[in-house]
Structure formats: C-alpha cells, structure tokens
C-alpha cells in the first residue's frame, strides 16, 4: 500500500546490535545490545519479532490496495466530524500526487468516490472510462525538470520569434489537449473526490477545520466563494500516532512537539491549474491570489473586517467546537480548554 511506517534492525559485522525505530517523526535508536553478553535479551527480541504482525511491521490494514475502501466521518458545517461513518472508496491506481519520503508529511493524494453522488451514477463508480485508459495511465502528469526536448531547442528564441509558428502548431496541440481533457473529464466523473493521506503534525489546526471555516466565509464573501475546496470526510487515526512509542519510552517532555498522526481528508476533485492557459490561467491565478488576501490577520488591519478573516485562535467562536471535541490545540501553552473567547 501507499503508506507504511518502516522499522528495521540495523546490525554491524561484530557482536553488537542496535534497534532503530523509524517513523514519520524521526528515528529512535536503542543502546547497544551485545549478541553474547545480552543473549537472553536477544533471544527475547527474536521471539518478539517473530510474533510481529503486519501492523507491528508498519502496515496500515485500513489502507490496503485490496480493500480499496475506508470508513471516514462526514465533516459538518461547523467544522466538527459527524458520528456516523461513511464508506469511501479509494483508487490507488488513480494517483493525483505522491510526496514519498521516510519522514514528514509524506502526502499522497489519490482518486476517491463514495457511491452516493449523482455524478456518473453507480455504474461508473471506481471505473475510468474508455477514453481515460486504464489505471495509472489515465491522466498522468509528468514534470520534466531537465528537459532536453521541449525547451532546450528553443532556449535562445526571443518571445517574438516563438510567437511565430505557434499558430502552425496550434491545431495539433489543441487536438492533443482536447483528448487529454476528455480523458481527465472521464476520470473526474468516475472519481469525483480525492483522498488525501498524510502524517499531520498534531499541534497544527486540523486542515478540515480551516477549510470548513473558509467555506463558511465564502457564503458571504465573493472573493472566497468557489475558491476554496469542499471538504467532505475526514478522520485521524490516532492509533498510528508517533506519540505512542515516545510516550512508552518516555522520550518527550513536550508531548505535542513533533508528534504526527495519520490523517485522511476527502475533498472534491480539482483540476491542475497548468491545464489552463492564456486568459483563463491569468484569471484563475488572480482569483487564488485575492482569495489568499482574506486569510490574514484580522485585528491589526483595517483592510480586513472580522467577518472576512480567519480568526485568531483566542477569538475562536465556541460554537465552532473546540470545546465540543478533543482538539490538539487545547494542549498548547496559553490555550485553556473550554475557555471563553
């Protein structure tokens, strides 16, 4: 599957052994274990490792490619999670983004669907249309950083030169672009959501809370309306939090610092802005820019009225639920759980 927490044994060619625990927060290395002088400990260790299941080795059974569905919670209008579970189908072959890494967030985004929406109907669920090809080939995006093909030949051309000849190539380019767009449309029809999987730092505000609040602002603000993704479902899997091993080993004074947990967020599917060009790109870009204008500090700037701005933490409206659900930020210095704004 796409996520794992890798843990391994590291040995040197002598009678010494160290145990390294590697997760998204970092590496924990044991003190030296002597193969002979600590033989009972080594034997116990081997017996323990022998009994490790997939989960102990870092597998996440909820996210296996065979299962392809997971139970998440609906995100309500007030930014909290509903109690009912919703089955979300995910499609690992429909990769949208992959930020592979051993440490950190390691964000992966893949296509998803619920089987509840009207888009395309149930018959199309989980399947990419014929034009979209099969699996990961459906609408792959490749970024060529050291391209010798497209750019290098024309590196020395001036804009005036390059403007010439655009028209000649335009027709075939447009045809290719249209075919690609149709393929992408098919994919979006079949998988109209994306599942974002990542290891979030627990001291940060949860992403779905910020997004829901931005959506609320967008109801009355045209600079935000339509320019923030819709968050649908989410869940934190605390059982995979990096804090457990550190709590057990009593390694951290500050229990929040650095802790990461597995977070799944489902949003509506968007299209990459590089698919646009010319005026469409220009307009969409400045819409994003002006949307960002309103996510600024509310108090100190006459530019932004309190209605339009994301609130400072201490002014958080209690109806938004920090008091009603267990929130990571409650444990931060200076923040008192249940305190009035």
């Amino acid at each position, binding site marked *: 599957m796409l996520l794992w927490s890798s843990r391994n044994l590291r040995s040197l060619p002598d009678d010494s052994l160290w145990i390294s625990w590697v997760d998204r927060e970092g590496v924990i290395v044991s003190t030296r274990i002597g193969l002979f002088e600590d033989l009972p400990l080594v034997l116990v260790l081997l017996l323990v490792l022998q009994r490790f299941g997939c989960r102990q080795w870092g597998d996440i059974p909820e996210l296996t490619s065979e299962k392809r569905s997971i139970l998440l919670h609906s995100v309500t209008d007030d930014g909290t999670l509903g109690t009912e579970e919703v089955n979300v189908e995910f499609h690992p072959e429909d990769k949208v983004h992959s930020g592979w890494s051993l440490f950190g967030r390691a964000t992966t985004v893949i296509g998803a669907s619920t089987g509840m929406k009207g888009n395309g109907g149930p018959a199309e669920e989980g399947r990419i249309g014929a034009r979209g090809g099969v699996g990961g080939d459906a609408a792959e995006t490749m970024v060529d950083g050291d391209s010798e093909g497209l750019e290098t030949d024309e*590196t020395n051309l001036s804009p005036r030169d390059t403007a010439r000849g655009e028209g000649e190539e335009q027709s075939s*380019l447009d045809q*290719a672009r249209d075919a*690609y767009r149709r393929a992408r449309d098919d994919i979006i029809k079949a998988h109209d959501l994306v599942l974002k999987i990542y290891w979030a730092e627990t001291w940060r505000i949860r992403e779905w809370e910020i997004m829901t609040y931005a959506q609320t602002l967008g109801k009355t603000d045209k600079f935000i309306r339509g320019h*923030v993704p819709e968050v649908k479902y989410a869940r934190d899997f605390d059982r995979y939090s990096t804090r457990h091993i550190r709590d057990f080993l009593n390694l951290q004074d500050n229990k929040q610092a650095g802790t990461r947990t597995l977070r799944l967020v489902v949003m509506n599917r968007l*299209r990459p802005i590089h698919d646009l060009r010319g005026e469409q790109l220009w307009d969409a870009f400045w819409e994003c820019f002006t949307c960002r204008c309103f996510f600024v500090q509310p108090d100190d700037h006459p530019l932004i009225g309190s209605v339009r701005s994301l609130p400072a933490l201490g002014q958080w409206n209690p109806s938004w639920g920090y008091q009603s659900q267990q929130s990571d930020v409650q444990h931060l210095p200076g923040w008192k759980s249940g305190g009035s704004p």
Partner: protein
Amino acid sequence: MYNISPAGKAEGVLNDYDLASWDKFPTTNSDRTGTVPFMALDLLHGGLDQQIPRLYRHDAESFVWVLAYLTAIAIEYKGHSVKISRPPYFNLWFKDDLQPNYTSKLALYINYGRAFRIPGYHAQYLTTVRKLINHWVELDNSLFDMKAAGSTEPETDDPKGILEGLIKLVGADSQKGFAKVQALLLEAVEVPGVV
C-alpha cells in the same frame, strides 16, 4: 488548482491547507514551511534555519514566482498524459542549494522571456510578470540595504500596503489583463482611488 463552475467558467481554487495556521498562533516548532522553489527571497537568503517571522508579503511574493513559472512552462499532451517541461533556468529553484535559487530569482527580471521562451499564449503577460518580479526584487534590495545599515527593527505585517503597491504597479500599465486585475485588487482592498 481550478474548478469548473456550473456556468462552465474555470475558477481558481486555493488548495492545500494542511500547513495553514491561525494568525497569532504560538507555533511550537521552528520548521520553515513552504515550497522551496517558490519561496520568497528573504526567506531563501541565509538559509532555512533563520527565524524570520512569516508575513503576508512572503505569500504574496511566492504567488509571483508561481506565476512566472506557470507562464514559462511548456506542456505537451501525449495521449492521456501530460508532460510539463520547465525551462532549464528554473532547475535552480528545485535544487537543495538555496543560494542559486535566490540569485536566479534576483536575475529573473532580466532573464524572463530572454533565457527561455514564453509560450505565445502567455506572451501578452510578459511585461506584467516582469514588473511583478522586479517589484519583489526591489523590495528585497531595500530590505537588504536596511539590514546592511544595521537596522534591527522587526518588520510589521502590512497586507494592505502590499496590495496597494500591486495596484499601483498594475495600474501603471496598459497591458491586457491589467485592468481586470487592478479592478479585482481595488475591490479587494476596498480603498477606491488609491492609484
């Protein structure tokens, strides 16, 4: 990212909020968040370990580096896949070493459209993008000079000033797209007649 509205219009969507935070939030780590290739000049300068307060202008500047990149890349459609080719000039932005990233951004005002081609459908915005680039480079120059002169006064966040500066910048030009952006920013800043 963008979405297609029910009316069929492409609408820009600001995405990825997992590193967003509330203002005045007492951060507990010293990580520099952001995307290095598009990071603002003074955040790049001196490395990632510097404790520079994050300001609105940093994000506003990053938008311009993104715009310069987006208008310079070439896209090739092959069947059901898309291949994005960035001009080699931008490779420096994607290396681990921050200094070439910093210096290439400083020089982008000169090189944008000269060291690499701008696709014809974006050529109409070439002067605009150059001016925007120059705007941030000049700001970085003035900050650099202030620091060199021994100024240690902490900078205060001034989104309104940033927007007004951009309005003046785009308002002074007649290129296509400027009027629309100017109107949008003027409405956003809610200070008519600034220009």
